[in-house]
């Protein structure tokens, strides 16, 4: 779901960098308000590397297999560190394997990182909005919402970018069919991502709950 170099016009790439700059500034501002931000840097860095590596794990979704995006999970686990972590992960991917791109780094970071921040806030509201649900159902439900909406919103941004930037010569019928197919195709993926996030968060809650303190 990464947008490669050469697809988007330079203006959109520049706008992506502008949004990424603002989101990074906001995230760093929130992080620097914490009592000891330096103490959290090693944790966020190693988890960034772990997420980067974990995104290579393939989940069998017959008849094929998919690799997960994990941006919702990143938001749930890393909180405000999620946006810098995604930016760094995408930078590695663009530079190391040519996945995504350097001109589209800002656009891709916005597409993945803003939904990750939303996923973090969704997960944090579990103790306010999910009061009527018992534990661990509450954690599971909000982790599912964070994971699936993280991917779902990223997919919507991706589709919007593609729709507004595809060649003008493509006829409207073909455009609608392609967008509909892509939209419908992402629904099961968002569910799989949500279920996987819920399973993983429930596992962390049992084994290492301090990882979920955000």
């Amino acid at each position: 779901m990464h947008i490669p170099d050469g697809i988007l016009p330079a203006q959109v790439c520049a706008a992506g960098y502008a949004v990424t700059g603002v989101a990074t500034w906001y995230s760093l501002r929130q992080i620097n308000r914490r009592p000891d931000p330096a103490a959290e840097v090693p944790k966020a860095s190693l988890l960034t590397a772990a997420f980067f590596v974990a995104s290579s794990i393939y989940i069998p979704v017959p008849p094929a297999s998919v690799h997960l995006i994990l941006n919702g999970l990143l938001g749930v686990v890393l909180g405000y560190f999620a946006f810098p972590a995604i930016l760094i992960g995408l930078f590695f991917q663009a530079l190391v394997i040519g996945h995504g791109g350097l001109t589209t780094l800002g656009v891709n970071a916005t597409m993945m990182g803003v939904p990750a921040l939303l996923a973090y806030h969704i997960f944090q509201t579990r103790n306010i909005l999910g009061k009527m649900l018992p534990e661990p159902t509450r954690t599971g439900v909000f982790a599912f919402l964070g994971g699936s909406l993280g991917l779902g919103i990223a997919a919507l941004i991706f589709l919007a970018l593609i729709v507004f930037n595809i060649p003008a010569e493509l006829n409207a019928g073909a455009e609608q069919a392609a967008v509909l197919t892509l939209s419908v195709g992402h629904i099961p993926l968002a569910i799989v991502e949500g279920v996987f996030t819920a399973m993983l968060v429930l596992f962390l809650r049992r084994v290492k709950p301090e990882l979920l303190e955000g």
Partner: protein
Amino acid sequence: MGVASANTYIHRESVIHDWSPRLKLISLGLLMFAFATVQQLALVPWMLGLAALLYGLSRLPVSFLRQRLSYPGLFILAVVLLLPLTVGETVVAQWGWLALREEGLRATGLIVGRFLSILTLGFILLGTTPFLTLLGAMRSLGLPTLLADMTLLSYRYLFEIAAMLATMQQAMRLRGFGHSHQRWLRVNRHTMQQLAMLTGNLLIRSYEQSERVYKAMRLRGYGQSRQVAPTPTITSPLSLHNWALTGAVLVAAAGLVLAEMRLA
């Protein structure tokens, strides 16, 4: 991993290798954006020529580019297969229901041309500059300390964590994971649970390692010296070829943008 294989070519000698990392980053970055502005098919050969010229100057082997294009090549294949058959109304050739269209061919040329040119510049940057030097250049251009520290630490442990995952996956396979029969069009909940636990274990191991890393960093003074001004370093003046190369690349970038505006 890719960075490790790219480092093989970093100690070669070429004008691009000797280019100041900061100037290289700025110049190639601006040239990439200039490539992204190109909308006219007539400018594509110029763009590809510029990328090829810089690649030639870097003296990186063609096998390096070929090897690294294998993954993004899938994207090119998808564009080449899809756009000429679906975009436009001017039919150039037809085989039954399959029609090759002129507008689609033009869009394909433009997208693939931009994609290859920008990607080549990215690989020149990575292939001729050690990653840590590149990060240092970004830091000197204003990258926030926290982001630089995170990038450095993530890069440092990336290979260790990848090796850890490979070991864990091998252990799972040795215990029979992946040998069960997969039913058609059905997600196996048990398999997913096991993969979630694998990912969870990877996160926990990384987290525990980060606590040890942090203690070691604290012992070496990390987090204590934020207010201390950095020691001024003596830098030698940049050579003429650094400025000449920077000037030539920036003129080429400006030329492409102006030509695009004129032709539009």
